[in-house]
């Protein structure tokens, strides 16, 4: 029998409730709190826009993943697949003459059509920052350090940020007149760290011995500071050397900020957003088979919409963070009152809520055992039942009978 469509949900969407919903907003609050303390101001961005505007700078793969439909004028509309192009548009079209740098943070759903596997959702929440107008290693280091602070705050256990340099990859691959299909095939093979496939492709393309040495070394260029020297030795052009010099400055700043212990240099990772132009990074946590956050420098994106402006940012996937986070949610009720309370008690209930206690009134009108059963399910630490206008029962760690005055006296002592 087919389940009627109205009862079903399209694949890859979340409905969260109870602990999960509470944990999600707790994690979002934590991150937005950190961003706020680093001077990043909140922006709210639209959920959809013209495809032309949202797909600008995206890779063909991401473009294919965008949900698209027509509006009533026949224009192609797309749901946002990430927040960065929207931020770039905001800056490029409206805020370009504000004092630089601009620091923005956001939280919201993004939508991607991805095959249903390995934790890929069609809707997921990205919380992130964009630092616009800073062209120096200082800006990159700030965003990376902020990503590290965020990962720490999530309580995800051991984590690591893999830091690469897109400019070095482009210099290495771009110098070998590899183009079109072959460039894509080569990037894919490097992305899989498939040495044999890389070797075969390079042979077919026919690159120089030095170029082959450099490209085949890419998957092995990961580790600590020594990677920089190796990468510089392998460089075949000024662009590659400059890219490494820049990365070295960023790394030095991370060392100076005492966060380099979390950073692994990783020059062989080709997977990143198509609009990245400089450093790029991914955050991983122990026990989760997917990256948790990713970011990078995108100096050419704002100019798609307005004046050219250097920028760097990162975003973190909240649903993935929830898989790894040890943060728990307390849904317990501080006090549960039976429904038919006299006015004097009701006024106290209002006062308790003012104090920050979580107080429920049992609007269903239960008493006695039924009320206590319900209280157990709601994890209520105190239950107040009412037998008559002046006789109440209080259940906390024990069980007591109280007059109204005694109850008022007792309740007024409760604090959060």
């Amino acid at each position, binding site marked *: 029998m087919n389940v009627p469509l109205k009862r079903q949900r399209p694949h890859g969407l979340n409905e969260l409730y109870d602990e999960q919903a509470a944990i999600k907003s707790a994690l979002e609050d934590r991150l937005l709190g950190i961003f706020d303390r680093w001077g990043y101001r909140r922006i709210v961005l639209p959920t959809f826009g013209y495809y032309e505007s949202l797909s600008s700078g995206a890779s063909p793969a991401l473009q294919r993943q965008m949900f698209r439909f027509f509006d009533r004028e026949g224009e192609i509309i797309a749901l946002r697949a990430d927040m960065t192009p929207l931020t770039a548009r905001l800056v490029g079209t409206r805020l370009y003459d504000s004092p630089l740098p601009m620091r923005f943070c956001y939280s919201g759903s993004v939508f991607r059509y991805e*095959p249903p*596997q*390995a*934790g890929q959702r069609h809707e997921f929440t990205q919380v992130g920052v964009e630092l616009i107008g800073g062209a120096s290693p200082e800006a990159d280091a700030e965003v990376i350090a902020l990503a590290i602070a965020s990962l720490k705050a999530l309580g995800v256990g*051991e984590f*690591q940020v*893999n830091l690469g340099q897109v400019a070095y990859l482009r210099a290495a691959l771009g110098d070998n007149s590899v183009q079109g299909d072959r460039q894509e095939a080569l990037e894919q093979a490097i992305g*899989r*760290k*498939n*040495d*044999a*496939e890389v070797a075969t492709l390079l042979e077919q393309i026919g690159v120089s011995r030095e170029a082959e040495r450099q490209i085949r070394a890419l*998957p092995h260029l*990961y*580790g600590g500071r020594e990677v920089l020297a190796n990468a510089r030795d392998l460089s075949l052009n000024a662009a590659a050397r400059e890219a490494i010099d820049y990365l070295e400055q960023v790394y030095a700043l991370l060392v100076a900020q005492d966060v380099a212990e979390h950073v*692994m240099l*990783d020059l062989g990772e080709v997977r990143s957003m198509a609009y990245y132009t400089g450093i790029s990074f*991914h955050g*991983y*946590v*122990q*026990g*989760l*088979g*997917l*990256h948790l956050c990713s970011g990078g420098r995108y100096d050419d994106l704002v100019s798609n919409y307005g004046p050219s402006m250097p920028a760097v940012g990162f975003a973190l996937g909240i649903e993935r963070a929830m898989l790894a986070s040890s943060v728990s949610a307390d849904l317990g009720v501080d006090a549960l009152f039976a429904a038919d309370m006299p006015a004097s008690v009701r006024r106290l209930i209002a006062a308790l809520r003012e104090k920050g206690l979580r107080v429920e009134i049992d609007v269903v009108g239960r008493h006695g055992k039924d009320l206590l059963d319900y209280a157990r399910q709601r994890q209520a630490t105190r239950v107040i039942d009412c037998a008559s206008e002046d006789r109440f029962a209080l259940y906390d760690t024990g069980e007591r009978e109280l007059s109204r005055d005694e109850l008022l006296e007792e309740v007024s002592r409760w604090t959060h």
Partner: protein
Amino acid sequence: MDPLTVALPKGRMQDEVLGIFAEAGYRTEPDAGRKLIFPDVTGRLRFLLAKPGDVPTYVEYGAAAFGIAGLDTVREGGHDLYEPLSLGVGKCHLALAGPASWLGRDLRKVPYLRVASKYPRLAQQYFQQRDLSVEIIYLSGSIELAPVVGLSDLLVDLVQSGRTLKENGLVELETLMESEAVLVVNRAVHKLRAAEIRTVVDSLADVLARRKELR
């Protein structure tokens, strides 16, 4: 540190692959394979036995750090994994095959082609690259039956010796891809436990290089 988990394909290749691991210093007890999950004697690795087609899934989700799988399976599933090492075992290729009457025919001149396959994704990709429009008929086994009984014109399947094709009066027309067993690695684990992963990959690579010399 917890042992790194290796997902192995249950069956045909299991012993051969365990042999390579043993030679690399990760021996297992002789009758260990009767359990679904068992450690190596050093305690650094832990093997699990999965259906060959499921191995990439275990690795992609991070339930296993490593896996051994046919390149065909990895690519068909579109799995996002590292493939740092080819093992030189389980060599075969993915071929387009059909009745001998199809030999030498230009497929672009055939307006409508039905192809049976257990590899719909790879088959579709191949035909798209060649600008052919093809109806792929998915079958999970005994693909060579399809052209014989008229279910399809041609088939795309793995070919090892070619004997099965021959027995059914079929011939190979084109090769889609070469395949063999590859070591696949979860992307995140590869980053997080880089040194350990490298040790395992390098010691396996040494074994394979030694074997190549002996041959």
